[in-house]
């Protein structure tokens, strides 16, 4: 779906964000490359602690102590956000890139009314006055399908349900018609029926405003329904990146495979689910080589020693389908067992 000829709206190159804690340096994001094209929905999927939220916060430049962006560039609309000063950033945040969060109720300030919180964005970025801001806020609330928008605008966040609060967040995020909306697990805290509402809303809004969306979630179902392109993250790096259909139909990274195999799917009853043994590595003491190697069944199957020695690079497996795995990549001393097959197949 991605048109590679199009110029990406956002391009992340070798982004490294580390947290300097008392236990050591947590390499939350360690060399992420990613691009988002205008108008697309990019799904960023991964388990908790894989660095997907940190990546999104890094884009917003909202990493606070003890975290720090240590390397890489985030080029948005031709400018490297990493190098921007606070005043310029302020013009981008909430205006050109906006963000919605996982816990909508705690993401809203409990002591201000809903309309004021939406209006604030307009006040800052569009110099709208209080009254105009309020009117626009109500308009936006109507747009996001808030029932009884006028009176809801006057309520405090705690008076809203989770779904309503997320609508407010979306309204706030869209207030300045941003180029990009980052939705960090927007439905995780919500019930399934409400989740369906919110996902529909995001989809509608994307169509209406034409913004690109980075949808961060751990729910593969949500990704399958929403995303056009998907990046799979594991332990601070992207392990696979492809359009949504190839990714689900033909996942190639052992982690992606395991992930897809491990979730129960409605209507497809299996006696046992697939299992990825072990658990996510500690981001302080990362294994040398491939980060997934300790849990990787394929590594054992093919008896690859390089996996524990050298870190694989994210490379094109197919056009538009990138993977970070020694199964598909050669090295001076190492011949990728599956790459050969693929090329052989292709030749046929």
């Amino acid at each position, binding site marked *: 779906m991605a048109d590679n000829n199009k110029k990406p709206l956002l391009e992340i190159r070798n982004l490294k964000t580390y947290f300097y804690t*008392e*236990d050591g340096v947590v390499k939350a994001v360690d060399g992420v490359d990613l691009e988002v094209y205008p108008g697309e929905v990019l799904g960023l999927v991964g388990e908790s602690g894989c660095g997907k939220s940190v990546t999104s916060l890094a884009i917003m430049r909202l990493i606070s102590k003890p975290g720090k962006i240590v390397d890489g560039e985030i080029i948005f609309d031709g400018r490297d956000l990493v190098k921007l000063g606070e005043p310029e950033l302020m013009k981008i945040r909430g205006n050109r890139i906006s963000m919605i969060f996982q816990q909508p109720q705690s993401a809203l300030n409990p002591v201000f009314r809903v309309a004021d919180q939406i209006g604030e964005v307009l006040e800052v970025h569009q110099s709208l006055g209080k009254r105009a801001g309020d009117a626009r806020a109500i308009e936006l609330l109507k747009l996001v399908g808030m029932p009884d928008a006028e009176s809801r605008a006057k309520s405090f966040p705690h008076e809203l349900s989770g779904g309503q609060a997320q609508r407010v967040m979306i309204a706030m995020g869209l207030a300045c018609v941003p180029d990009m909306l980052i939705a960090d697990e927007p439905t995780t805290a919500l019930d399934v029926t409400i989740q369906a509402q919110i996902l529909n809303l995001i989809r509608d809004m994307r169509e209406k405003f034409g913004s690109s969306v980075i949808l961060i979630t751990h729910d593969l179902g949500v990704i399958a329904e929403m995303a056009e392109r998907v990046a799979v993250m594991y332990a601070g790096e992207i392990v696979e990146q492809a359009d949504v259909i190839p990714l689900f139909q033909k996942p190639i990274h052992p982690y992606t*495979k*395991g992930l897809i*195999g491990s979730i129960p799917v409605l209507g497809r009853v*299996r*006696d*046992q*689910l*697939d*299992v990825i*043994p*072990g*658990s996510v*590595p*500690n981001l302080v*003491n990362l294994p040398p080589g491939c980060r997934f190697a*300790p849990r990787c*069944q394929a590594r054992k199957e093919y008896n690859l020693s390089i996996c524990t020695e050298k870190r694989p690079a994210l490379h094109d497996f197919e056009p538009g389908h990138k993977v970070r795995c020694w199964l598909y990549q050669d090295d001076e001393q190492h011949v990728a067992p599956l790459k050969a097959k693929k090329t052989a197949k292709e030749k046929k």
Partner: protein
Amino acid sequence: MSANMKVAELTGEEITIQERTPFQIVMMRFRKHRLAMAALVVITLIFMLTLFAPYLANFEVTEISVGDYFLPFGAVDEDTGRVHYLGTDNIGRDYFSRLIFAGRVSLTVALISVLISETTGVIIGAISGYYGGALDNVLMRFVEFMLTIPSLPLLLIISSMLLANEDLIPIPAIVLNTFGKIMLLNPRDTRSAVLIIMVLAGFGWLGSAQLMRGMVLQIKQQTFVEAARSLGASNTWIIFKHMIPNAMAPIIVSASLGLAGYVVAEAALAFLGFGIQDPVPTWGNMLSATQTFMMDKPWLPLVPGLPIFICSLSFNYIGDGLRDALDPRLKM
């Protein structure tokens, strides 16, 4: 895929987090708080000084060198050749010896008060928070009511009553003997110290009871308590095996801050003339006895004033360090 993956095979590399007991973690974090570590060193030093007071002091507490009033630091006793490291006070008592013995009393008073008040507070707070209902209501209303009463005035009244009337609260001889041994005092002189402990602890437990109750209410929400109940645990089991150990962190913090408070409170009572009385030396009554010399011999009040200040500061720092180290928000 390999659906017959055996669960037992999943182990091995799994424990990726370093093996440390909570205690080790706390200690590790505490060590990072430099001021708290410094405070700990200072407090340890002071404790050692007072602990070895009988060996360090070259004079007895009540020993008076007649006429040797206000001797300067390092003065030498002519008859015996012993050194008054910190000089003498207004009636010729060796100031250093008094200071370290006084520290023993002051710190014992603070420690025991904290011990009693925290224990009482923990038990009452735990019972109140755990059982809730009418009992909780009565206990907490009582605590709140006691807290509405300004404590210093009340301390004054009560200590004046208790100090005066020996029969009002008879203290068992064993208590006096034990405390006397700790503080190196004649058991009968110990009475005023024990009374002040009772007075201080009598008010001190209120705060920790509230704290404990809050903690218990919070812990009650945790599922491990429910888990214990589902295993058939009795209330006592839950309170002692789960509630109290889990609530200890803030209690320990409040105890160390409490130590600071008690050291100062004892001194304040002494300053106002309602504290531990003279045959028993404390930093507080040494300070109050010499505060009249503030103008001309400032070191006299300064010498006992400084340890009060330092101890209070150190306990505060230690409390702060412990708070940081025990902060549940930081991951364990």
